[in-house]
């Protein structure tokens, strides 16, 4: 057949396709079913064959002749050339594929090396770490995952080194703790959660007599003495299984049978999850401590009894004291008091007194003007410095009356709290006696002062006229016949003046004596006021022209008073006014008649009275410092004051810019005597 196309056509000898009697050509190298398919579809049917006819390609084209009979026209051609071409192409492809395969294998080798090398290196480092060689340098080349793995490995290396360091430290601590526990004087044993002893120290063996071999694996109840009941152990286990520490005293039994008290502390040990894994028990033999405690308790009991007796004695003394005793806190709240205090303050019972708050036993103010609170604060301050002190205090009774007390205060502390202990003594009588003594002392001082003034006055007011009289008498005795008559009269007049001055001074002294003795005569009678004033003025200044101006002209007005005493007052006023005023100045006598009072006032232009000495103005023998050498006994205003007081009136001194006003006001009426109440 070669590469030529071979054509054939055939009709079955029977000319009937249904009989399938085809030509051998078709049977030889065609698909046995190709005819059927061609005639069924009446379309070309392609097929291949490889047999004695060779290897070819065939086509069957169905058709019909002019008689309508079906026939099939076929053609075939050899495919050897095509196969050869295909095989050649296939070989080329295989060669090319093998080339690509070699390249692929090379690439895969390179890629594998690139990927695996860092992993291999890291694996080597991990192996080194596993062998304990820490701190290997870890490179930073490779893919991101490898770099991340390297960083993780480095972090793991650091973490392992840190953990190893901590473990080394912990191991050292553990060694120390283990050694400490082993060497501890206290017996220590450790049990697991079920209560099985897993470790004991040497002291345990010493105390109990059980060796470690004997104790380990057994329960702590091998020490049980039977002195504690079931409830005790039940509570113990409940406590430690709840994770709490159990601490108590317990009586256990040694291996040889003797009992001993010990203090045991059982502490649950927990793992990182908080689960109890072990219990550690630390025990201490407290035999000696118990004996010491019993001894101490006995001593405490004895001491307590002593204290009770002491307290009883103190309470007896406290209650039996005649002085009031009160204890307070630092705020002044009363804490305790005795019976005398209740009686002193006038309360019905102790409870009422103690119920009073701070300041309830004191008036609002103390005699020095301070409030009781301020004074108490100051006393407390001093007490803190000194510890104890005596003070005088003004207290207040239940009925509100005040009374002075002397307080012996002590400060002490009870349980850290300051306590004030005060012993109070009512000093009302003593104060009264002191007042009398002080009054007497003042009186004595006054008398001494009066005596001093009297001596001074007498030495001056009596000696001066006496000296003049003596001089005049000597003059008359020695030269009486030789001196002229006029001169003799002048000397005699001087004698009379001196004697009169002495008489007046003595009269004043006598009157002052009567006043001191309360024997001043007082006889009020009605008299004509203007006539009275006129006479007194002329007695004081008989010579003319008179320096005294009377501002009163009612000749018909009568008043009722002691004319002699009133005259003494007025005479004193006028004499002083004339004596201490410059010569030639006027002295005004004023009169003011009220409905039931009479006021006589004298205005002068004199030297006045220094302000500091005005309070002594009406005292006996008192003379102002600015009087100079003016004569005077210092009794005039004292007597005038007493005379005014005898009327129920008083004197008044009013300083003026250029002088003074002395006035007396007495109760008097124009119809009769009206004594003041």
């Amino acid at each position, binding site marked *: 057949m070669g590469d030529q196309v071979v054509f054939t056509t055939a009709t079955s000898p029977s000319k009937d396709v249904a009989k399938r009697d085809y030509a051998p050509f078709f049977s030889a190298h065609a698909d046995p079913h190709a005819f059927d398919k061609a005639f069924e579809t009446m379309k070309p049917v392609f097929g291949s064959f490889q047999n004695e006819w060779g290897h070819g390609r065939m086509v069957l*084209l169905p058709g019909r002749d002019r008689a309508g009979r079906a026939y099939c026209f076929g053609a075939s051609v050899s495919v050897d050339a095509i196969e050869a071409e295909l095989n050649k192409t296939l070989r080329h492809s295989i060669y090319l594929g*093998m080339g690509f395969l070699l390249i692929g294998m090379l690439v895969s080798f390179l890629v594998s090396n690139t990927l695996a090398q860092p992993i291999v290196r890291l694996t080597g480092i991990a192996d080194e770490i596993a062998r304990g060689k820490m701190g290997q340098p870890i490179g930073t080349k490779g893919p991101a995952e490898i770099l991340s793995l390297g960083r993780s490995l480095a972090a793991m290396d650091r973490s392992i080194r840190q953990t190893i360091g901590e473990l080394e430290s912990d191991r050292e601590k553990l060694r120390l703790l283990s050694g400490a526990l082993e060497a501890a004087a206290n017996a220590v044993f450790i049990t697991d959660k079920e209560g099985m002893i897993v470790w004991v120290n040497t002291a345990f063996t010493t105390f109990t007599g059980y060796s470690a071999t004997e104790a380990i694996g057994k329960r702590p109840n091998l020490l049980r003495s039977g002195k504690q009941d079931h409830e005790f152990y039940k509570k113990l286990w409940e406590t430690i299984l709840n994770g709490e520490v159990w601490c108590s005293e317990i009586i256990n039994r040694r291996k040889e049978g003797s009992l001993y008290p010990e203090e045991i502390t059982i502490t649950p040990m927990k793992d990182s999850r908080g689960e109890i894994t072990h219990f550690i028990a630390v025990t201490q033999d407290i035999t000696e401590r118990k004996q010491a405690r019993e001894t101490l308790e006995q001593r405490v009991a004895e001491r307590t009894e002593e204290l009770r007796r002491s307290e009883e004695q103190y309470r007896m003394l406290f209650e039996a004291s005649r002085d009031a005793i009160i204890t307070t806190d630092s705020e002044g709240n009363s804490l305790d008091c005795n019976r005398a205090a209740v009686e002193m303050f006038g309360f019905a019972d102790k409870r009422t007194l103690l119920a009073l708050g701070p300041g309830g036993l004191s008036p609002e103010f103390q005699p020095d003007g301070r409030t009781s609170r301020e004074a108490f604060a100051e006393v407390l301050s001093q007490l803190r410095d000194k510890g104890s002190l005596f003070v005088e205090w003004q207290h207040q009774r239940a009925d509100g009356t005040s009374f002075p007390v002397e307080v012996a205060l002590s400060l002490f502390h009870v349980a850290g709290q300051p306590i004030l202990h005060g012993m109070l003594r009512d000093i009302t009588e003593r104060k009264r006696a002191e007042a009398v003594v002080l009054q007497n002392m003042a009186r004595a001082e006054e008398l001494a002062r009066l005596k001093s003034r009297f001596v001074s006055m007498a030495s001056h007011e009596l000696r001066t006229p006496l000296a003049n009289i003596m001089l005049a008498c000597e003059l008359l005795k020695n030269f009486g016949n030789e001196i002229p008559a006029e001169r003799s009269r002048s000397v005699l007049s001087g004698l009379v003046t001196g004697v009169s001055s002495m008489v007046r001074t003595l009269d004043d002294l006598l009157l002052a004596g009567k006043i001191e003795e309360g024997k001043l005569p007082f006889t009020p009678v009605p008299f004509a006021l203007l006539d009275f004033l006129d006479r007194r003025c002329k007695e004081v200044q008989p010579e003319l022209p008179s320096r005294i101006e009377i501002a009163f002209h009612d000749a018909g007005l009568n008043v009722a008073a002691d004319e002699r005493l009133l005259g003494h007052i007025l005479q004193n006023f006028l004499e002083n006014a004339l004596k201490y005023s410059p010569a030639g100045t006027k002295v005004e006598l004023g009169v003011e008649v009220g409905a039931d009072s009479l006021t006589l006032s004298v205005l002068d232009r004199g030297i006045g009275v220094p302000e500091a000495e005005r309070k002594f103005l009406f005292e006996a023998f008192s003379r102002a410092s600015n009087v100079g050498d003016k004569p005077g006994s210092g009794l005039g205003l004292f007597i005038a004051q007493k005379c005014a007081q005898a009327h129920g009136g008083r004197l008044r001194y009013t300083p003026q810019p250029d002088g003074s006003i002395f006035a007396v006001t007495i109760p008097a009426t124009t119809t009769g005597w009206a004594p003041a109440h």
Partner: protein
Amino acid sequence: MTIRNKLILSIGSIVIAIIAVYTGASYLAQRHLLLQALDEKLLCSVENLQGGLPVDYHDRIVNSGSVSPEE
């Protein structure tokens, strides 16, 4: 087996598979194209010859001598 060998084996297997699939597919496609061209050639030839046959050709052909070599 090391990871490197695994990688080499895996990548090599993938390369071999890809080359084999590609080569096979390429061969089959080439063969299909050649056969398709041959089939078109055969069909064209057959159709041309079929149209040139005498109308009694099938009546005459009853054995191997019914058609002369010249015809």
